[in-house]
């Protein structure tokens, strides 16, 4: 679900398990999607991106899945580590509008239990 104020959705996983973080977007014209990781007191850190002509993209220990039919994006983290604990944001924009501004979701907090 969406967060309100300080009450971010939280996903708690055990170290070594796989994590799946979900994001719903509303703009059907969005065609570029990015996942960022933000640790406390730091700026967002780029993890992985995907364009709308793809439905899956893999990086190191991370996979992003895009389902344009239901306007849903997910980030899968394999073998989650304590260092993965952070707030994760999805962001989007639309090439058609010519705008470069990213629209961010409200974030999900990932807590990795050792």
């Amino acid at each position: 679900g969406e967060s309100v104020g300080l009450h971010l959705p939280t996903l708690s996983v055990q170290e070594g398990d796989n994590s799946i973080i979900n994001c719903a977007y509303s703009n059907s014209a969005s065609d570029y999607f990015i996942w960022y990781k933000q640790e406390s007191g730091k700026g967002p850190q780029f993890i992985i991106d995907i364009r709308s002509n793809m439905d899956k993209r893999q990086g190191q220990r991370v996979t992003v899945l895009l389902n344009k039919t239901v306007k849903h994006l997910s980030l899968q983290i394999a073998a989650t580590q304590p260092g993965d604990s952070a707030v994760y944001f999805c962001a989007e924009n639309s090439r058609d509008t010519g705008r470069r501004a990213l629209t961010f979701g409200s974030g999900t907090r990932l807590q990795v239990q050792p």
Partner: protein
Amino acid sequence: GAGVSQTPSNKVTEKGKYVELRCDPISGHTALYWYRQSLGQGPEFLIYFQGTGAADDSGLPNDRFFAVRPEGSVSTLKIQRTERGDSAVYLCASSPGLAMTQDTQYFGPGTRLTVL
């Protein structure tokens, strides 16, 4: 190479005062962005520069906010007559500025502004 840097890291000011926040983008990046992030929220877009010009300032909340990038590198976000509601983390990002495509925005650590 160095990432995006922002100064100061923290700024405390009084209501009604003027503040300037500075951003040094990644060397060679022609695109620069300012976002604002309130506690528990995702960043919200303020303004985007391509080179020296503001290509999109649609996110600036009102005319108390202004940003410049006179030489196409360092940018300064200026806030006049600060209000308590301006308290937030101000994030700067830069990207290579490739034409006709979205290119990855890399963020700095932010400036935490507190208006008392």
